[in-house]
């Protein structure tokens, strides 16, 4: 239930009153609105900072965005705020801020960087609002934005945020150290994404930037990309009477019939024709990929924790790219005890990437259920839509699926299993029912070149299926 509008207005006025303590100028209604927008995003990430901090830090981060140079005030408004002003000055003159200033940053990026800079201090601040059931978004349209800040401060004393400013100043070096960590790597990751500014997008993005494994996944996938980009669509044979001959086929038109077939007597010819036993020349054509569906499942359960997760997702990213290049549709889904929503990695890869990198399971496993549901879905795709499905699942060595389910799946799809880093010899009863499978062992990943070679081998093998 959204909070009533008057509650949100009250919160806005309380927050705007803190801008009377701002030390970044110039600042008017537009800057306040921008700060409120960042504040809302931070609130979605669980950080409900005083607006003045969001405003001052945010404006410094994005100061080249609208072409207007914002500056830190030359002097502090009050002696108690001198240290805060000095912190802002140090921030404004840092290399990272200078570098960031050369390129415009999106609001989401600003919010995520602010979260990175300030979350340590915020989360250890005793005065932070404790667990709350309401999320109060600040309204983006209100006459209060044009109000006089001094008057707003007189109406609602902003002193409540001073302990946070003090704490921030006490941890100045830690904040600056955080800033130094925002390097090209983080920005490169951010550059890979596109946004629709939803809550989950933002949370995923923050998760990506805060999670060490995400960078590994991207790095791992990027290592494979040059090889994957060499992928060419393979030619195939067709029955229409165009282009050159490419093959001998069991089906075709009369004009493609092998001359030798006409040498049979009438009875044998008729029998062979009825049994589809006649041979025809096939013509070269592009592969029929329109109905091909590459369905990829990535195990997100707690069992994948650590290096398994990095390799599984990196491999999934690379495979998605490979399948896209080969043509056909690519579906990616995470699974644990549920099949999670489909990620459209084929056509909206940039939008889906944060989720792919940072998806975190909040459930246990239930492979019997997941694969039974999948068998029903794939059966339907094949029967009702005539889809040609290739199902690849990336999991661990304890993924026990009932054999009957695997058999059902193998009837309707090309079934490929990839088992990452088994901690003991793999012993899954259904392995022989899969069309193919690969086991990625720790030994095969120990050397950089070997890891890449092994990964490419898997990608090629899966794609070849």
């Amino acid at each position, binding site marked *: 239930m959204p909070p009533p509008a008057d509650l949100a207005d009250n919160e806005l006025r309380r927050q705007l009153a803190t801008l009377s303590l701002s030390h970044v100028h110039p600042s008017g209604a537009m800057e306040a609105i921008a700060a409120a927008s960042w504040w809302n995003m931070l609130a979605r990430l669980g950080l409900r900072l005083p607006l003045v901090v969001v405003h001052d830090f945010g404006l410094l981060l994005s100061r080249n965005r609208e072409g207007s140079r914002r500056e830190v005030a030359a002097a502090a408004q009050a002696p108690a705020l001198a240290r805060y002003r000095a912190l802002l000055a140090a921030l404004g003159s840092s290399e990272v801020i200078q570098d960031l200033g050369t390129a415009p940053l999106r609001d989401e990026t600003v919010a995520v960087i602010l979260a990175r800079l300030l979350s340590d201090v915020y989360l250890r601040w005793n005065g932070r609002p404790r667990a709350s059931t309401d999320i109060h978004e600040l309204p983006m349209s209100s006459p209060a934005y044009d109000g006089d800040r001094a008057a707003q401060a007189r109406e609602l004393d902003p002193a409540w945020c001073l302990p946070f400013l003090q704490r921030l100043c006490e941890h100045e070096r830690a904040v600056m150290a955080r800033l130094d960590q925002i390097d090209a790597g983080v920005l490169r990751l951010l550059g890979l994404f596109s946004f629709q500014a939803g809550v989950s997008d933002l949370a995923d993005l923050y998760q990506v930037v805060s999670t060490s494994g995400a960078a590994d996944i991207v790095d791992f996938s990027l290592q494979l990309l040059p090889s994957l980009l060499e992928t060419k669509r393979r030619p195939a044979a067709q029955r229409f009477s165009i282009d050159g001959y490419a093959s001998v086929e069991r089906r075709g038109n009369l004009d493609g019939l092998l001359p030798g077939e006409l040498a049979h007597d009438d009875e044998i010819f008729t029998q062979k024709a009825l049994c589809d036993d006649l041979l025809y020349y096939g013509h070269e054509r592009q592969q029929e990929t329109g109905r091909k569906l590459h369905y990829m499942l990535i195990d997100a359960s707690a069992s994948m924790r650590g290096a398994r997760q990095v390799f599984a997702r990196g491999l999934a990213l690379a495979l998605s790219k490979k399948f896209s290049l080969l043509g056909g549709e690519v579906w990616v889904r995470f699974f644990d005890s549920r099949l999670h929503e489909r990620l459209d990695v084929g056509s909206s890869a940039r939008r889906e990437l944060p989720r792919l990198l940072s998806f975190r399971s909040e459930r246990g496993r239930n492979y019997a259920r997941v694969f039974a549901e999948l068998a029903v879905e794939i059966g339907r795709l094949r029967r009702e839509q005539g889809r040609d499905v290739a199902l690849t699942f990336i999991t661990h060595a*304890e993924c026990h699926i009932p054999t009957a389910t695997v058999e059902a799946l193998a009837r309707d799809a090309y079934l490929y299993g990839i088992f990452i880093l088994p901690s003991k010899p793999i012993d899954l009863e259904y392995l022989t029912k899969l069309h193919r499978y690969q086991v990625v062992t720790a030994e095969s990943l120990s050397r950089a070149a070997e890891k890449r070679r092994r990964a490419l081998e898997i990608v090629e093998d899966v794609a070849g299926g």
Partner: protein
Amino acid sequence: MATRDEIDTKDRADRALRAGRAREALGLYATLLAKVSVFEPGLYESWLEGALAAYQTMGRNREAGYVLLGLRRFAEAQRLFPVEERPLEWALCASRQGRHGEAARVLAEAGHPALAAVELETAGAHTAARLEWERVVRDPRLAGIPYETALAHFNLGEALLRTNDRGAADRELTITQRLLELLADDFESRGERERAFDCYSILLRLGKDTGSFENVAEGYLNGIRILASDDQKFYVLQYYDDFLSYAVEQQEWYAAAQLAREAADYSVKAGLVYDRYYLTRAAELWAEAARQNEAAGGPTDLSENALHAGIDAASALGDLPLCGRLYGALAALPLAAKKRTRYRALAVRYTGPAIELPAAVPFPEYLRRPGAYQDIWRQDLVEWELDGDPTAVLARLVVERTDHVRFSRLALRALLLCSSPGFSRDDPRAAADLALALGKIQVYEVLRPLERLYEHSSPQVRAAVMGGVGQVYCKRSFSLVRKGLADPAAPVHIEALRALRGLRFRDGFDPLTQIFRDFTDENIRIAAVETIGELGSLEAGLFLLDTLRHETGALRGAAHKCLVNFAGDDITATVRQYLDLEVGENREALQRVLRSLNASN
């Protein structure tokens, strides 16, 4: 020191006994035995000796045997239990005398293969134990009860591992794993998180038994997730700490480093002081992950990212010299020149003498809970096998709950009650007395017998079950209370309401809120609010604030009253927050709450 009254009563009882008035003596001893919280050495035992003599004089050997169990004189007790009539008690005595094989034989013949198997394992007779577990697996009573079936397969799997039959063990453990996955998912979907937790505990054990890190991770991380959602802070940290050690032992560096970081984040969120320790561990472990990767000739970017994660932890810690050292390690990696130059500059910027930081306090030993890892795969199967038979459950409690002598004494009193010659469970009054006596013991084990008694046709008994269960502070108690609240008999409903008000313990928050949501009867909902009001936790405070702000009438009034008298975690900051946001009636109510809270602080 015994009181004057106790000495007099004992004297009178002894005199009556000597005069051949055993019945009168027994009554007096029973009065004394009701004082279960007497801890003067030898005093309670002297009363037991008196009761024993009285029983023996009256020829009530079975009860005398139970008293001897309480006195821990198992050889004498055993002689009073004919093996054909009381095999379980006989075996209990044999077991306590170290004669596990004999105990197992009798238990097996009496249709208790699980108990027999446990005895055989204690005796080290693993092959024989395996046969008993096989009997359990084949037991037709397991049909349709998947949880107990999973436990049976698990126990058999472990037995097969002990007899080195690896292939068969793997088959049994695979069945166990599949069943547990299904069950945990079902339990969680139905909101029975503590039962899902049990499943994950077994998966954890299964993983350790078979050397499967994947299963250990599944067990620990899902266990942590459930414990965290129940706000079991110290259990969560103990689990994190233990899993961290296991991951390091298994050289799963990535997982270990991630866990340390998560433990630190959790500690901060929970308001505990261990974050600095876990951040230090995370920084160390990421550095170790990078080192190991380099040593194995792994990709440099993996080392680079690991060191970045280490710097992330170090800067959260405020340990800038450590950041400097890790930047130094980054600069030493075979990276592009531009990167190395930057890392070198950062290393110089942060390197300096060690700075004085607040102490990094590790999770202390004294906060480790001894009950964090229970062998529920045994306990729950034994519960199934005894099927709520009060005599069997109570006899075991008398013998085994020596950690809390009060529980053992209360169990003995209940046992004597249901063993007296005139006792019949068909008699509503007797069954009701038993229900109350069971409830007084207040341990988890009595819940199954209470659940069985609730099946009684007499409302008097069902009402007494409510009276009993209202004293057992376990989440499972709420499922009986819910039945009582929906019971068509008014006395049962009234007692269930009373039980609901009695179950005031912090872990009860979730079941209480569930009752608040599920029932429409206003009296029940008010009782739930008032009980939550007594919990004193932050989440209880937030619940009351929400009820005050969003409900009306008597419910709102109840929440307001609870908030005004709220004692426990400090909720004033949250009330102030809401005060800034609320208007009208709600604002006035919050002002009253804040005034009251400030006055009481």
